[in-house]
Every structure is written in structure tokens, then in C-alpha cells.
């Protein structure tokens, strides 16, 4: 103890502490990496990404049967009641209402082929009106129509007229940005 002076003799207290730490690290083997901080960071990133993905209003499930047309319009999507017109079916709020084949409604009763669609839209309108009556947000009569680019105008207007009968007359046509 009383032999050679310590190596840090000429340094101030902070430097001495730093060199002591370095010497210790060089001398000891690393037993295990502490992953806790990394786990915290990963968890935060994961929660952020999941929340962003789930809350994206433009989160429209695309498929070969549903390819909306391209457009240069820049208006952002506002989430509301949705009608999907794919090559195979028409859905209201992502629940199948009627089946399509060659852009014609498949039904055993052709005269009332659109009844399931009317019922689904009326049910949704009723829910929104009830929410308004109980103090919720007012029923804005908006509906977003997500249709495949090949949907003929006749079918498009048929669906629009059906939604108009159910008091959805403020249409938002959903398109892909060019």
C-alpha cells in the first residue's frame, strides 16, 4: 500500500473515476448483455406502430377483387360508414350484403335482389340516428364508397340510390393517390 503511487495521482477526481472504470472493463469478462433497455425501446416502437396501423382511416383492405381507381385528388379520408363494391360482393361496413357475378346481383328473387343491401344500410342509419339521439355525434349522412375501378356506372348509381334511400346522401368516393 505504501509502495508506488497510484496511476491516477496526477489526475483530478473525475478522470481517476473514468480510468478506474475502464480498467475494470478490460479486466472482466462480459457475463451477459442487459437487454432491458432495448426491450423497453422495442415495446414503445411496437405499440406506436400498431396504434398507427390500426387507427389509419385509409386502412382499406385491397385485393385483386377490389382495386380502387387512381386519382390526383388530395383530400384526406375521413372515416365513416363504408360501402365496398368488389368484383364478388357489396359490403356495408365490411360485412357482406349481396353477392355479385359479372357485376349483377346474385339472388333467388331478382325483383328484391337489393333488399339485403337496403336492410344493411337502413340498420346502419338507424344505429347512427340512435347514437345521435343519445347525445353522441350527429348523423352526418356521409358514406364512403370504395369501389373497384371496373364497376360499371349502372351498378355504382344503383348502390348510391340505395344509400340515398337510407339517408346516406353525402358520398365520398375512395380512390388511390396517383
Amino acid at each position: 500500500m505504501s509502495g508506488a503511487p497510484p496511476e491516477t495521482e496526477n489526475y483530478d477526481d473525475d478522470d481517476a473515476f473514468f480510468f478506474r472504470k475502464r480498467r475494470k472493463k478490460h479486466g472482466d469478462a462480459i457475463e451477459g448483455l442487459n437487454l432491458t433497455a432495448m426491450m423497453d425501446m422495442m415495446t414503445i416502437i411496437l405499440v406506436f406502430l400498431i396504434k398507427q396501423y390500426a387507427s389509419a382511416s385509409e386502412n382499406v383492405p385491397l385485393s385483386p377483387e377490389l382495386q380502387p381507381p387512381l386519382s390526383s385528388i388530395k383530400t384526406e379520408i375521413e372515416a365513416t360508414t363504408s360501402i365496398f363494391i368488389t368484383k364478388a360482393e357489396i359490403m356495408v361496413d365490411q360485412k357482406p350484403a349481396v353477392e355479385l357475378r359479372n357485376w349483377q346481383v346474385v339472388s333467388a328473387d331478382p325483383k328484391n335482389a337489393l333488399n339485403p343491401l337496403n336492410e344493411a344500410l337502413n340498420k346502419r342509419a338507424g344505429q347512427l340516428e340512435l347514437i345521435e339521439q343519445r347525445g353522441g355525434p350527429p348523423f352526418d349522412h356521409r358514406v364512403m364508397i370504395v369501389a373497384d375501378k371496373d364497376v360499371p356506372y349502372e351498378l355504382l348509381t344503383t348502390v348510391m340510390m340505395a344509400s340515398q334511400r337510407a339517408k346516406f346522401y353525402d358520398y365520398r368516393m375512395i380512390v388511390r393517390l396517383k
Partner: protein
Amino acid sequence: MAGGGGGSEELNLVPYLDIMVNLIMFLITVTAYMAEMRQAPVLAPGGDGGQCANPPCEDKPKVFLTVAVAEKTIAIVSSDREKIPASQVDKTGSEYPYAALTAKMREYRTNYPDLADNVMLIADKPIPYSAIINTMDAMRSDSQGDLFPGVTLGVAVK
């Protein structure tokens, strides 16, 4: 307690970390390839030539244009045919002449500034939805500014 008397063994976080990394990579990839979606507002036809959607507006409707998309042509007519002449742009090849339509709409906007901002758009039954959207794009604006940003989709009444 069984096992409670052992040393302070750390939980093995490596498998959990693997799952997290995979999930993050998946979410980042999915988000990157997600198509950017936008919305084009469209009004339902009212009893006033489309200038006032439901509920109907109180003011007297302005003179408005109707754009009709047919199989081989796009026709433009106004609600006051005596003052504002009709015109059309014909299809060349398989594509509609959207640039010519934009130029024509600019002429109408410049020559008849009192025209309503809303255009009534109608189409033949088999016209695909993509042609409707492209027509709306062509009528909405050009490099000089807004043309006819509002669209009311018209339907034939039985």
C-alpha cells in the same frame, strides 16, 4: 416456495426480442407498401339540377354544366343552352381525351365565370368507374387553378 430459494437468475429475453424485431419489421414493411388512399366528395342529385344536394338549398340555382360520358365521346351541355353552347370531346383510341376535356372546361370557366362550381356528371350504364374518376379529375382543376371542383352524379330516372 419451490424454486424460490435459487439465485437471481435473469429471464431469458432473447426469444421475446426476436418476436419484437419480427413484428416491427412486418409493421414497417406493411405500412410502407400500403396504398395511399384519398376521397373525392360527390353529391347526390337533388331536384334542382344538382346544384343543391340534400337538403335542398334556398337560393336560386345558377346555370350549370352537365358532362355526359358516352362510349365514344364526352359531351358538355349547359342548363341554359341559348346562352352557353354545347360541345364535346371525342375518344381517340382506347382512352378518353382528358387533356382536351380540361382545356374545354377552362374555356367554359373563363368565358362564363358565373357558371356554378358544381357539374352534373352522368354516364352510360357500362362506363367503368375509373373513367368517371378520371373525368372528375380532368374537370376539377388545371395548372391555372380550380375549374369545377364539385361533382353531382346524375342518374336516369325510370
